[in-house]
């Protein structure tokens, strides 16, 4: 994504971030020695409120932390848990590392792709799911595994993963994820 250099040097983003976002960013900055050190946390804070980091969000955070937007963009694009494009309500991070590979990852991947009719990096037309890969999720003894939002799902099978996705879909309207059988 291109940053608008003209707007960047004449920033007018002082009202962009909410008070909640600012106070959480301030808290993170307070435990580090410099304001820009809180950049990654600030991106995570704003993402938690807005779902992803738009160009506007990036420019507002950079201005708030008194750092250049180019530097923050370098940070934002480095870390895979920062989304620089819009994502669905539920982001699926499917583990594609070695233990999952040995225990049936590819079957789970094709099941998800087929069931949701999306490929890696895509979002379903109803905006409910985005599919991304993830390096080893640390659930190697319970593989294959995936993380949806903050919840880890283990011992995946073809039918189990469909059940999980359908349950999430049904609960997404009521925002109730407690009925799915994963562990945070």
């Amino acid at each position, binding site marked *: 994504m291109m940053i608008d250099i003209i707007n960047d040097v004449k920033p007018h983003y002082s009202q962009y971030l909410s008070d909640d976002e600012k106070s959480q960013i301030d808290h993170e900055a307070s435990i580090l020695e410099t304001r820009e050190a809180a950049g*990654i946390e600030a991106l*995570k804070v704003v993402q938690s409120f807005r779902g992803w980091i738009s160009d506007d969000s990036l420019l507002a955070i950079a201005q708030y932390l008194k750092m250049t937007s180019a530097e923050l963009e370098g940070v934002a694009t480095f870390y895979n848990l920062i989304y620089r494009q819009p994502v669905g309500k539920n982001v699926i991070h499917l583990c594609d590392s070695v233990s999952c590979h040995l225990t049936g990852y590819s079957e789970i991947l094709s099941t998800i792709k087929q069931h949701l009719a999306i490929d890696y990096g895509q979002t379903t037309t109803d905006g409910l799911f985005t599919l991304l890969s993830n*390096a080893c999720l*640390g659930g190697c003894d319970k593989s294959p595994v995936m993380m949806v939002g903050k919840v880890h799902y283990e011992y995946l099978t073809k039918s189990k993963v469909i059940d999980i996705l359908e349950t999430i879909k049904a609960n997404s309207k009521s925002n109730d994820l407690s009925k799915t059988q994963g*562990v945070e």
Partner: protein
Amino acid sequence: MNSLTHPLTHLVNLASPLTIQGYIDQGGYKGAEKAIKENSPAEVLEIVKASGLKGRGGAGFPTGMKWSFVPQYSEDDERSKDNKYLVCNADEMEPGTFKDRLILEGAPHQLIEAMIIAAYTIGANKAYIFLRGEYHLAAKRLQIAIDEAYQASWLGNNIQKSNFQLDLYLHTSAGRYICGEETALINALEGKRANPRAKPPFPQVAGLFGKPTIVNNVETLCNLPHILKNGTDWFKQISPDSDAGTKIYGACGRIQNPGLWELPMGATIGQVLNVHAGGMAEGLKLKGLLPGGASTDFLMPEHLDVPMDYDSIAKAGSRLGTGGLIVLDDKNCPVAMVLNLLQFFAQESCGWCTPCRDGTPWAVELLSRIERGKGTLADIDSLLNLCDFMWIGKTHCALAPGAVEPLKSALRYFNDDFVQHIELGCCPYHGVQ
């Protein structure tokens, strides 16, 4: 299972970890109390050195020696007023490694107690837990434990009226394997891209925000309360082996009972795989294994008697790494497995140095060509050349050499499989992938 035989895991409760009071009732914070009330920092350093504790994050460097590189200035020296930092590396992301997650989620106070001891010893008043972003449950439980520790005066000013002050913060990361490299981790903690730094200067001298910094792995740190409480003789005699203490070993792959077991350091590969993990899954045979995570060399069925300690595994041609076995069975294609590993390293390369940035994707290209049956024998030579280009001394950090370890050893041990792919023009394990 008790505190003397299973120091690291006997208090682990994954369903509901001990609160601070429950932890104290079980003998918790006794090690920290002994450190800060009965010993000077220099004395604790001597205890840790004498214990023989080595880093459990992969490199196996002696912990006491690492700490001793932190400069200690006399009080009239201006530099004595500088901050020092302790950082716990909880960025567990080595494929096939899930041991730290167990003790983070199951016994968060053990880590806090450990960090009090380490910070006291090196003279740090600020400490961070650098936790990978995906470990949400660990984050929640650690923050609860940290808050409890502040309330109970185990963190903050004048800890237990000892005059020692320590502030401990939880930092959750935003992904990327390279953050586990300690200088990359420091850059990430400073809010930067996680490119490793050139060494020297080493972090012990100039680390976080340019100040002396010690970065230790979760499992390494968690040994400290027990060493302080039970003594160095106890720690050394747990293991019949030259290395001291216990180790949380793991096993994954298509085996009967994947999991984690805390055993005396030096348990053999066969004990972990066949006794604790119950051997291979029904109908499968052992083809090979990585003894300590993705970035270690393959070992073979003939290595089952090798003790899983630093020296013995090294002698067998691999590394203990994180102590997590990744088991390859005879119905999974070794070429596809190595391709998966190299895809991981290529994706996680930070891109700083050319051998890694260009070498790892090149290896992926060659391996996928062979796996698809489109490879030539010359591709094997190219892979061997790449192993040389990406080896230690030619790269900025240990990531690319870590990728070389499984690749080079696979080319040696599974040469027949590589050649068969090329001669048949397809993967002989079709149907499995």
